[in-house]
């Protein structure tokens, strides 16, 4: 389907596709097995300017937006959803600065992120605060010209690998949701430590760690926006980043589908390729249709965000929900088409199924997405 991409968007898509095919695909199984963070791929992405595509030109980027972010994430995820997350997770960690950073903060952090010199990470989740983000316990106490951070963030993508951390912490417990604030914390700051790398079902090459603050002292200039804006920063960040997760899911689905149709044409049973059987044909037809529908929704949402639309929460949630559910279904079906071979780790398709699962969980479970969508629907309906 033709999505009427601009010349620059086609350039980004094609280059990301080339990186995915030439550099990432041959290494995907190795890094999945070793669970190492794929720095060699981050260097390729950095050399090709991919890290800067959604960052304004004034800060060394290419001046694109969420659409460009989605195109690159989708293509990279077709080869490896885990390596792609080194890039997409950096975007998640960068959006708070892009959206709420002041000029000094943008000048200080964005150029290095755009060049791929520094990765970023977003820290909100805690052991007791997952879907219920209001239960955050990490605190930031003002102490003269500084803030003192204390607490532990959990399951932080790019944790330990990133140089720049955007952190949501409580500055005034009495104010509830209005008592949270957002901060920038640099790696190397005294009192900032990392837990061990988590062992995961999928996206194993992505680094997931605890980020631990123990009397971590940061200059007061590192606050993003004002005190009390933490949840607004987080929610607006998610509005911008959810299409990115949706694009990751879309890429994973497309990658699994590509393998499945290729295999179905080559696998001979009963004297003919299994692609000649209607049972397989209908599966492939459903998979391709669902992927295309997801793509249309993801791209439309990304364009809506880039257009500067005031409220995109509902659409972002829809895109993330739908694309990740499609990714799960398509990857399960792809394994089914591969039959016994699909279950074997010697074949690449089971990894896509393992990688797909997280897209239904992180950046808001799909149940939370449905809550967001429903609450908007009801509000809209009440307005008439």
């Amino acid at each position, binding site marked *: 389907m033709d999505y009427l991409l601009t010349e*620059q968007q086609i*350039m*980004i898509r094609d*280059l990301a596709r*080339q*990186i995915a095919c*030439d*550099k990432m695909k041959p290494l995907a199984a190795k890094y999945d097995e070793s669970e190492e963070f794929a720095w060699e791929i981050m260097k*390729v992405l950095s*050399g*090709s*300017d*991919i890290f*800067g*595509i959604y960052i304004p030109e004034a800060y060394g980027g*290419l001046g694109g937006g969420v659409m460009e972010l989605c195109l690159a994430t989708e293509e990279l995820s077709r080869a490896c959803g885990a390596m792609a997350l080194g890039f997409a997770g950096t975007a998640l960690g960068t959006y708070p600065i892009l959206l709420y950073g002041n000029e000094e903060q943008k000048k200080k952090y964005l150029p290095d992120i755009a060049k791929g010199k520094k990765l970023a990470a977003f820290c909100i989740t805690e052991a007791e605060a997952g879907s219920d983000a209001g239960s955050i316990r990490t605190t930031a106490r003002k102490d003269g010209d500084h803030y003192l951070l204390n607490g532990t963030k959990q399951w932080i993508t790019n944790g330990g690998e990133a140089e720049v951390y955007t952190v949501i912490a409580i500055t005034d417990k009495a104010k509830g949701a209005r008592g949270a604030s957002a901060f920038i914390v640099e790696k190397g700051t005294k009192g900032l430590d990392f837990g061990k790398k988590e062992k995961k079902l999928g996206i194993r090459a992505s680094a997931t760690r605890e980020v631990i603050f123990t009397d971590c002292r940061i200059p007061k200039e590192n606050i993003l926006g004002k005190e009390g804006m933490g949840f607004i920063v987080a929610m607006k960040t998610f509005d911008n980043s959810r299409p990115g997760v949706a694009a990751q899911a879309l890429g994973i689905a497309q990658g699994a589908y590509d393998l499945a149709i290729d295999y179905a044409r080559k696998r001979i049973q009963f004297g003919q390729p299994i692609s000649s059987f209607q049972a397989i044909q209908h599966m492939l037809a459903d998979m391709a249709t669902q992927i295309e529908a997801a793509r249309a929704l993801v791209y439309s949402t990304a364009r809506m965000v880039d257009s500067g639309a005031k409220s995109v929460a509902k659409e972002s949630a829809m895109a993330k929900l739908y694309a990740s559910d499609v990714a799960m279904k398509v990857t399960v079906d792809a394994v089914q088409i591969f039959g016994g071979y699909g279950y074997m780790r010697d074949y690449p398709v089971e990894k896509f199924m393992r990688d797909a699962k997280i897209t239904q969980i992180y950046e808001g479970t799909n149940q939370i997405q449905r809550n967001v969508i429903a609450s908007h629907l009801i509000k809209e309906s009440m307005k008439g």
Partner: protein
Amino acid sequence: MHIIVCIKQVPNTTDVRIDPVKNTLIREGVESVINPFDTYAIEEAVLLKERFGGKVTVVTMGPPQAESALKEAISLGCDEAILVSDRKFAGSDTWATSYTLACSIKKIGTFDLILCGKQASDGDTAQVGPGISTHLDIPQVTYVKKVEDISGNKAKVERMTEEGYDVIETPLPCLMTVVKEINTPRLPSLKGMMKAKSAKITKWTADDIKCDPKSIGLDGSPTRVVKIFTPPPRKGGEVLKGDAGEIASRVAGLLKDIVI
């Protein structure tokens, strides 16, 4: 440091087909690419620029569509690009091509180093690089697999041989042809691609490079291609059975028959 890279646009060998009747290349619909060996020369030039500073000029002789190869070279980090193109160059062999490129390089002016791929993937002659150095009367080092150092108008390089490598020191300016062991070419960068899109490619004709009209194109080419043919496919071998002694004597007899 000023580095000049000579490149050639060739058909992508992964999808070249031969017309079974005429025995010629089917060029329609075949993608053109930078000669794969030249991509190592481009990468090495850009790496040397990053190491020692300076600029990289890329030059090609070819039809107008070779401009796309030059733009790709710019997206990979080359600074300036020159397309030497004229119908008068048609039919050039390696002698006339290297003469034409040498004349173009003289027009470019001063330089420290010329880099070429070791050979082109279509003609496979490996003659144009050395030919350029001969026409320019500068030293040449072929099959370079590593540039160890460049300092004080001298370069120290490793030249690949069948048994290992030679370490060679050469005065500059000189010409080097490089092998694929020398580096891993980078992928283009988005900023490079955008620069390439708006880059101005300098175009020179035979008149511009002040070459001797008798030394270019078909007239300037002493080589005559008498016939191009596809080697006949190898016939299947024969499996000899029996005990070792029997087989050995039969093998000896067969070898004797084909006069080895």
